[in-house]
């Protein structure tokens, strides 16, 4: 196998990297791997190496994170200046507020990536949403007890209360 860079020497360094679930491989000879700094085990991006070699950018950056819906390229985050085009290129967002800026583009993406689109896990102790979540949890325990004791009247009341709490707009803390 010949080196991908000089195409002259036998390749002795074989690299494989997974980026966004896509496998990239490159084969280099000892000399070229040194020239590219690959033998220096500091970690490096194979993508940048490949791009430099003229391998289509499409192949090295295409990934599951490409938004399903075509984003408007002009959309820009008011907090950090990140644009939809930046997201398309990097597959990463600019700052926490980007989630609000690009909410529309992210919606479909999150749906395909995850089990759901609503967080059901841990909530920081200081967050107001924790109170609602805890209330719901408490009421659910009471509801289960009511059903077990066949107190259906009480169960109905509890069920409605839970529904009401869940329907409340979630308090989002602003900085």
């Amino acid at each position: 196998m010949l080196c991908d860079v000089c195409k002259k020497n036998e390749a002795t360094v074989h690299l494989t990297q997974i980026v966004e679930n896509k496998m990239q491989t490159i084969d280099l000879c000892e000399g070229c791997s040194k020239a590219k700094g690959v033998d220096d085990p500091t970690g490096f991006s194979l993508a940048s190496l490949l791009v430099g070699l003229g391998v289509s950018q499409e192949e090295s950056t295409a990934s599951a994170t490409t938004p399903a819906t075509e984003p408007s390229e002009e959309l820009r985050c008011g907090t950090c200046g990140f644009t939809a085009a930046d997201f398309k290129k990097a597959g990463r967002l600019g700052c926490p507020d980007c989630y609000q800026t690009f909410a529309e583009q992210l919606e479909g993406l999150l749906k395909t990536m995850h089990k759901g689109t609503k967080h059901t896990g841990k909530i920081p102790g200081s967050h107001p949403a924790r109170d609602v979540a805890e209330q719901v949890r408490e009421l659910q325990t009471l509801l289960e007890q009511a059903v077990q004791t066949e107190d259906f009247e009480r169960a109905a009341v509890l069920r409605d209360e839970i529904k009401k709490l869940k329907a409340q707009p979630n308090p989002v803390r602003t900085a």
Partner: protein
Amino acid sequence: MTLDSFLASPSDAAKRSGPNDRIVLSSRVRLARNLRGFPFPGWAKKGDRLKSLEIIREAVSGLPQMENAFAEAMDNLNPLDKQILVERHLISREHAAKTVGSGLVISKDESLCVMINEEDHLRMQALRPGLQIRQLWQVMDEFDSALEKKLDLAFNSKLGYLTACPTNVGTGIRVSAMLHLPGLVLAEQVNQIIQAVNKLGFAVRGLYGEGTEALGNVFQVSNQMTLGEGEIEIVERLSKVVAQLIEHEENARQKQIEKSPKTVLNHIGRAYGILANAHSISSKETMNLLSLMRLGIDLGLFPGTDRNLMDELFLITQPAHLQKNYTEKLSAEERDLLRADMLRDRLLKVSRPIPRFPGAEGTTLDKPASP
């Protein structure tokens, strides 16, 4: 303090043990967190990165879990130190490439490690040998709860913890187990198993996440989804999958011994032969052969030899750990020679494998493949 004097020696590191560590090499729980009001590290300017690094480093170092920890900025570590940390699974390859504005904090016992300004402001992980996923989640949960009192974390009630990459948003949790599965590889069942595990929403990767071909028959199983499922649910589901994988691996080993004892003995005997006698050997070949010898130890073919020795050799034959013993920079060819010298030396005291499995009588031949 230098990194070298902080880290446990490879032989001490290899002596750490945990439940089911015959097959589960290690478990890990990682949480991704970010500060409100700061751009994510990949988009932040140097000034912002230095500022967030300072804030986080102070908060993390002040936690009781981080007493006598190793805390350093990435630009103060040399490339070799960084690669040693990657080989110890303490930091990611991505983090090893970071310089100014990134840092790390490692607890005294090396079971907790916080990467600062990797892809997210905070990547904190708890790591232990053997199958300890549930315990690790408790450790991480406690650590995170203590830290959130000191830091203003980016969180919203609909999407949970906000992360640089949408693949981590929500719980920001990545739960994983590193498994040694030589039995399933020999039985040619491993691809089937990987597909089944994938269907459950879990990813299967190699030793360092590279390629589908797992070096040394080591596979890493981890959750992929972080939104719409709670931490406990994820931890429980992964624990169950790992428990099943352990069972499959044990069954595969048993079946291989019964069906093709000669093939298994041949693989293990040849692995020992090469490792104990080679004069030049690559890191990749070393890992694959050490895996077979480790299997031989598990199956009782090397009485008196401890599994720890294999784990230690697995670590010290990797490029950075090998280079550490020499002041001049080694080329790949030179490393292969020195690696072989080291293996011959360390395996001098290990006798060749016994010719049959304990309990098996006489020479047993492989059963012919059923038509």
